[in-house]
């Protein structure tokens, strides 16, 4: 399937999704779906750098929080429409991603992972001490009263935005994967020196991947303050974002765009169900158990496992 056709299909599916769920009366499903979709975007975004290029980013929470806090800042400053918040947060997180891309010049493997984790800690400390956006107390955001398209509740607006952003993220990830850029990134993942000696502009591609990855993670965070009406640093910078965004592509499969989608839907849904039926305390335990199972039984994730089954036939 060509990329434009895939894009058309993805957005058609998104609109169908939005239309179908409008028939559901219970608001809980919207907020559950919102959370799952948020993880689909985070996992897809992480995978652009982590899965395609092989640079493991442990600082997903930092990018997510940069998106969230740029929304908070804009809200305090000018009360912009939601779409402006989304755009600005995406750009700011993208700039941070570009900076991380330059880190790959000197840092590889474990050292890169630690550097990104440190980045999250530094930004967390910065936000905690930044009074304008609420500091450690956190910040309140009032959901706007007037709703577009005749929607009844604000969660519908957020849900709609999330569905469209998810479609956009998947289209971008797939376009990268199937293009020359994706081939170059795969070569970098396999052997960076050999890639450079085959003519691949490794630094340029890594910076591009880091920028796209960072901006999409930030995008997923921009609506977060509106969703909760209240943000505090420890919520936005929660380590569970970093853990989940790595676990989901690992479980789903890291070399294809469908992997993070499958992993995030599976893990996100299980977490939502358990949160309602048992307790949210179980969430990280589930991630841990699933990770152990998949790393031992299906090291290429669900998508890789299915592809292998198909080849065998």
């Amino acid at each position, binding site marked *: 399937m060509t990329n434009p056709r895939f894009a058309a299909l993805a957005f058609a599916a998104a609109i169908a999704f939005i239309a179908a769920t409008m028939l559901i009366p219970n608001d809980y499903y919207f907020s559950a779906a919102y959370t799952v979709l948020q993880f689909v975007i985070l996992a897809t975004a992480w995978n652009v750098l982590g899965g395609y290029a092989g640079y493991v980013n442990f600082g997903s929470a930092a990018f997510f929080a940069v998106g969230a806090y740029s929304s908070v800042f804009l809200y305090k400053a000018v009360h912009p429409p939601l779409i402006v918040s989304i755009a600005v947060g995406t750009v700011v997180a993208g700039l941070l991603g570009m900076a991380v891309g330059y880190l790959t010049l000197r840092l590889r493997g474990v050292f890169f992972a630690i550097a990104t984790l440190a980045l999250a800690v530094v930004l967390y400390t910065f936000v905690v001490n930044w009074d304008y956006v609420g500091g450690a107390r956190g910040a309140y955001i009032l959901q706007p009263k007037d709703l577009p398209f005749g929607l009844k509740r604000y969660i519908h607006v957020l849900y709609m935005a999330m569905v469209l952003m998810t479609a956009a993220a998947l289209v971008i990830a797939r376009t990268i994967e199937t293009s020359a850029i994706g081939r170059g990134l795969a070569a970098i993942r396999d052997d960076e020196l050999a890639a450079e000696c*085959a003519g691949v502009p490794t*630094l340029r591609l890594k910076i591009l991947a880091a920028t796209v990855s960072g901006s999409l993670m930030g995008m997923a965070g921009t609506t977060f303050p509106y969703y909760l009406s209240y943000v505090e640093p420890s919520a936005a910078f929660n380590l569970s974002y970093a853990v989940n965004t790595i676990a989901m592509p690992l479980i789903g499969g890291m070399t294809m765009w469908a992997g993070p989608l499958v992993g995030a839907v599976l893990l996100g849904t299980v977490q939502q169900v358990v949160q309602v039926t048992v307790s949210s305390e179980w969430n990280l335990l589930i991630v841990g158990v699933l990770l152990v199972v998949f790393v031992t039984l299906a090291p290429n994730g669900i998508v890789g496992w299915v592809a292998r089954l198909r080849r065998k036939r």
Partner: protein
Amino acid sequence: MTPSPTLPQGGGRPLPAQGRGRLLAISGVTKRFGGFTALESVDLTVAPGERLGLIGPNGSGKSTLVNCIAGTLRHEAGTIAFKDRDIGRLPAFKRVHLGVARSFQIPRPFASMSVADNLRIPLLYGAGAPLTLNTQSATAEAMRILEQVGLAGKAHAMSGGLTQVDMRKLELARAIAAKPALLIADESMAGLSASEVDEILVLLLGMKEHGVAVIMIEHVMRAVMKFSERIAVLVAGRKIADGDPKAVVADRDVVKAYLGE
């Protein structure tokens, strides 16, 4: 001070390729690792389409020189000119675009890709006109090169599972796929059987038809003598001989370096 690339300095010996119009002109290249001098003021030239054998005992700086030419190491002093252009400060991938390609002594395949997909990377990013992904022309070109090196039967095998011999062939195939004007084969024949050495030799000799100059770094002397129009000898980071193969291997200094007094 940047000596003109057309006037190599030092060495004392006449440079045989002089006046033939140079593809590669290295002059005074020095590379140190801490206190250890791996290359000391090395001069070397290669003419378009020339076949140069580069020999020397282990640790004499052959691979370091390759790395400096390919851009995977930066030399401290001297100039490296390619097609009359100083490439000494260019990143490795830009040198590939200009037409310098190398194979690695220890094979470095893109292990998650099939053999054919390994070639698609240089076909896409190398010095040739970029072949669009997955098109028939890219596939046909990849297969043509794989046939040349005798890997056509394994085009769809995963490159990570190849034997050492096949990995060496893949190294060469990938370098050829980058469409170079200068191909540097870093010990492509080590560990190969006599008939396999001949296969690779025929392949490298055939590069001349395409106007590709080849620097062959090799310990297999039979291959070096058959292949080279000219031989340069590195010992302990210095070039001690450069010229006609028969004369060079008979040179007293060269014999001394290999066999002692």
